[in-house]
C-alpha cells in the first residue's frame, strides 16, 4: 500500500511540475498566437484567473485540491470542462479494451495450455511460430488491413467511429450499430494482445509441468485430468495474471494507435487530438487517468495473488 501512495504522489507532482518546467510563456499556451495582442490588463486577468500569480507551493496545494474534487480545468481548444470530456470517452475505451482483453486472455490461456501440454510436438511448434509472427505485426498496419478488407473491399463493417453519425437508431438496431463499429478495433487489439498471454501461459505451464510435485502427483496414481486441473492449473496461472494486470493497466494508454486508425472516440483518440493540438491540460488529465488505471490494475493483481498462492499470504 505504501508503494502505491508514493507512486500517486510522484505522478501527481510530476504532472504538476512538467508544464511549469517547459520553456516559454504560459500565456502563449493559453492564448495561442494572439498572445502579442493582449493588453497588460488582459494578461493580468488571465494569469489571476488561472491562478498563476500565486506562489508555487500554493499552486501545488490547489492542484491537489482540484484533483480530489475532480476539477481538471478546461480544454484550451474546446473550452469544455476536461472532466466531462474524459467521462464521455471512458465508456468507449472500456468497451473495446475490456472485450479485447477478455478475448486475448481466453484464447491465449487456452492455446498456451494446449501448446504446453503437447510440448515439442509439431502442433506446439507451429502454434508457437504462428504466435511469434502475429506478435511482430504492427497494430496500425493490422488496423489498416482490416479496414481495407472488411470496410472498403467487402463493405461488411463501418470503417470509423463508434456509432453511425446522425442516425438516431434505437433499441436493437442501436446495439448492433455499436457492436458492428467495435468489431474491428476489438479484433485488432485482441490479435495483437494474444501472443503475449499465450507465451506467458505456455512458458509458465512448461515450468509447472517440470516441477517435482507434478511427479509426486503422478506417483500417487493421479490421471492426466487430475494432474492438469488439480495440480498444474493453479500453479500456472499466477504469472498469467501479472501479464493480464499489466495489460489492463496499459489498456487505457495502449489504444492511442488503434483508436486513431479507426477514428474511435475513446481516451486514446482524445490524447492523440490533444497532442496534435497542444492541448496541455487535456494531456495532463489523461495521463493522470492512465496512471490511475495502471495502479488499480496492479492493486487488483496484488489482491488476487494471495488467493492463488498461500505462500504470499502474510499471517
Amino acid at each position: 500500500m505504501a508503494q502505491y501512495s508514493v507512486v500517486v504522489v510522484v505522478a501527481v507532482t510530476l504532472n504538476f511540475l512538467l508544464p511549469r518546467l517547459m520553456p516559454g510563456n504560459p500565456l502563449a499556451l493559453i492564448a495561442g498566437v494572439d498572445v502579442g495582442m493582449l493588453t497588460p490588463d488582459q494578461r493580468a486577468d488571465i494569469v489571476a484567473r488561472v491562478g498563476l500569480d500565486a506562489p508555487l507551493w500554493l499552486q501545488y496545494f490547489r492542484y491537489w485540491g482540484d484533483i480530489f474534487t475532480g476539477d481538471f480545468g478546461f480544454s484550451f481548444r474546446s473550452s469544455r470542462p476536461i472532466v466531462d470530456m474524459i467521462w464521455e470517452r471512458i465508456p468507449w475505451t472500456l468497451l473495446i479494451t475490456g472485450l479485447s482483453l477478455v478475448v486475448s486472455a481466453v484464447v491465449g490461456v487456452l492455446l498456451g495450455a494446449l501448446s504446453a501440454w503437447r510440448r515439442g510436438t509439431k502442433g506446439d511448434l507451429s502454434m508457437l511460430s504462428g504466435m511469434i509472427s502475429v506478435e511482430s505485426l504492427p497494430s496500425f498496419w493490422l488496423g489498416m488491413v482490416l479496414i481495407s478488407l472488411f470496410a472498403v473491399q467487402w463493405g461488411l463493417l463501418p470503417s470509423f467511429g463508434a456509432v453511425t453519425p446522425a442516425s438516431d437508431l434505437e433499441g436493437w438496431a442501436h446495439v448492433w450499430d455499436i457492436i458492428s463499429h467495435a468489431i474491428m478495433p476489438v479484433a485488432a487489439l485482441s490479435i495483437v494482445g494474444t501472443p503475449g498471454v499465450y507465451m506467458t501461459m505456455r512458458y509458465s505451464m512448461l515450468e509447472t509441468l517440470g516441477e517435482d510435485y507434478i511427479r509426486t502427483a503422478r506417483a500417487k496414481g493421479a490421471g492426466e485430468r487430475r494432474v492438469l486441473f488439480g495440480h498444474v492449473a493453479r500453479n500456472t496461472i499466477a504469472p498469467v495474471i501479472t501479464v493480464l494486470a499489466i495489460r489492463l493497466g496499459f489498456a487505457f494508454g495502449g489504444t492511442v494507435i488503434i483508436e486513431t486508425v479507426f477514428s474511435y472516440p475513446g481516451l486514446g483518440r482524445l490524447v492523440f487530438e490533444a497532442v496534435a493540438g497542444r492541448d496541455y491540460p487535456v494531456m495532463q488529465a489523461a495521463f493522470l487517468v492512465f496512471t490511475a488505471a495502471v495502479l488499480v490494475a496492479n492493486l487488483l493483481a496484488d489482491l488476487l495473488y494471495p488467493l492463488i498462492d498461500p505462500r504470499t499470504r502474510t499471517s
Partner: protein
Amino acid sequence: MTAGTAVAPPRDPAAVRPNLLEIENLFVRFELPTETVRAVSGVSLTVAPSETFALVGESGSGKSVSMLSVMGLLSSPPAVISGSIRLEGREVLGMSARRLRKYRGKDVAMVFQEPMSSLNPVHRVGRQIGESLRIHRGVSRAEARRQAIRLLDRVGIPSAKNRVDDYPHEFSGGMRQRAMIAMALACEPKLLIADEPTTALDVTVQAQIVDLVRELQAEYRLAVVWITHDLGVVAEIADRVAVMYAGRILETGQASDLYRATRHPYTSGLLRSIPRLDRSVTTRLAEIPGAPFRVVSELAACPFDDRCPLAGEGCQDALPELDTVGHGGHRSACIHHHQMGPASTLWPEGTVAGDQASADQAIDTVVSVRDLQVHFPIVRGLSRSRRRAIRAVDGVSLDVVRGQTLGIVGESGCGKTTLGRAMVALVRPTGGTIEINGKPINHRSGRHRRVVQMIFQDPFSAMNPGMRVEDVIAEPLRIHRLADTAAVRDRVTELLTQVGLPGDSGERYPHEFSGGQRQRIAVARALAADPEVVVCDEPVSSLDVSVQAQVINLLADLQARTGMAMVFIAHDLAVVRHVSHEVGVMYLGEIVEKAPRDQLYADPLHPYTKALLEAVPVPEPDYDTTRRTRLTGDVPSPADPPSGCRFHTRCPVAVEGLCSTVKPSLEEVTPGRWVSCHLVSPPAGHPAVAHLGLGE
C-alpha cells in the same frame, strides 16, 4: 524407539519367499536432441517382501532412473526402456496408462529427495495426503481428511489435527518429509521407493526419518528400496545393497558382506573416501581420482577402469558381468576381485604436501570476532514495523588463527552461513566487531578486501556462466593488481595447476566442467587474491562422495603450502573433524561449545554436541544404535528463540526451573575449551543447582 529391534536380515531371502520386485536386464537410454545418454545398462536385481534394499551410487550412476522406471514415471520420449520389471510377477513395462495409474501409489509408492518441491505449494498438506485415498479407494473428502490426520499422527507430526490444513511452506523440512512418507503409505503399498529421502535434511532430522521408516516398515510389512549416495545411512538400514556406477551394478550382496568383505575396488574406494568419526584423523583422505561420467556410447569395457587401482590386463577387453564371489548372493563385476588386498593398500591415504602448522608456531590471530550480532529485521504490515528480527547471529566471539582451520558446525538455521558471510563483509553486522589483522572490517569495495576470500557451497551458481574460467580466476588478480597484465595468464595457469586442473582449462567456460572441477576453479579464484583467510561455506556438500575427498585433500594441501587460515562451515561433523584444528558448535545464532578438535570429538560436553555426534550414521553394519539419544523436533525460529538456554526445548537433560529461565554463558572449562551449559558450569547460588547437587 524400536531402532534396536529392526527385523534381522533373513539368511537368503530369495530362498525363503518369492520375490516382490524382480528387475531383469533393464536398459534405459534418453534420446536427447544432441546425444543419447545411456542411464541404465543391464541392471538385474530382486527385492524380497519386507526387505530393505539399498541402491548406492554417485550422481549419474543410474540409481534413480532405474527406480523411476519401476514407478513408470519416465516419460518416453525421450526415455527408451527395455528389459523386464515385475512386481509380484506382473510385468510393469508396457502396462497401459490406466493400469499404471491403478498400480502407482497403491502397489508401489515413492518418496523423493526434496520434500519442499515435491509437495504442491498451493494445496493443503492433508488434502495431498488424502488424494491417494480419493484416487484408489474413492473415499469421501471428509473420510480422506480423517485418514490424513491419522497418517500424519502416525508419522509423528505433533497435534496432527491442527496441522492437517497447513500448507507445505508452514511445515519444517523434517515435517515435510514425514508428510511425504504419510502420503506414500496412505494406500498401504507393498513397496516403498525412497529416493535420497534424507539428503536434503539435517543429520539430526535424518536420524529421525531413518528411525521412522524402520518402524513403519515393521508395522506395514513393507519392502523398501532406499536410493542413496551415503554409505553411512546404508549400513544403518539395509539388508542387502547394490552399488551402481555408470548405469551398471558393480557389486551386490548382503550389507555385512559388502562392508566387511568388499569385493570391488569401487565399493572399497567409496568406503575409504568417507571421513569417519570412529577412525583417527590421518593427514589425508583416501581419494578416488577422476569423476563419474555420463555414458553416451554403449559400454564395451569396465566403466570404472580409468579410476581403478586394480585396472590391468583384460579390463578393457569386455564388459565384466556380476560373478558370485561369496555366500548370500554376494556378487562382483570385477575380473580382478580375487587380487583385492586390504582397502588401505588399495586406496592409500597419502600425506599432506609441505609442513602442517606445528604446535610450536606462535599463535597469530588473523580474524578476531567479538560479540558479533547479525539481525535481519522482519518487515511486515502497513506500518512496516521492524520490531521483530531474525537473530541469525546473536553474540558470537571467536578467533581464526594463521595456518589453522576453524570448523563451524550446526543444523540449518543455526546462523553458520551468516557468520561466514559477515567475516567476508558480505552482510553488515548489527552489533559487535570483526577485526582483520587488528583493523576493523570495512564494508566498502576496494583492495583491502583481498585478505579474506570465500568459497561457496554451489559451484554451479557461484561463478558467472558467461565468463571464461581464465577471466573468473584473473578477476581477483586484476582487481587487486597482483600481477602485470602480461603476467596474468601465467599466474592463472599456475593457479589452475595448483588446484589440479590442466593448465589450459582457462579457455573454457564453467559449464564445461563437472561439479568437482568447478569447485576446484572456485578454490583457484579464492587463492588468486593471495588471501590470509578463506571462508569455506559447505564447500563439499554438493559434490559426489568420491570427489569430496579430493577437494578436502586439496584444501588441506593448500593450507599447508600457503599457511592461510580457514573457516570451514559444514553440517557434516565427520568432514569438519577431518579438516579442522578447532571446532565451534553453533545453535540458534550462538556458539554453545568450542574446543580443539580432538577434545571436542572424544569428549563432547554440551548435550547438543553429543546429540549431533550421535546422529551421524556410522558406515558399519550391526553398529549398536540402541543407546543413542535422538534429538526430537526441529530448530525453533531464530526470530523468537527460547528463553534461558536456547537449547532447553530439545535438550534431553534440561533441568527444570533452571535451563528454561537462566541463560548460560560461554565459560572456559579447561584451557581452550569453552562450553555454554548449566550442567557443565552450574551458576552459583541457584536453588536448582543446590537441589541437584550440581555444584560439586
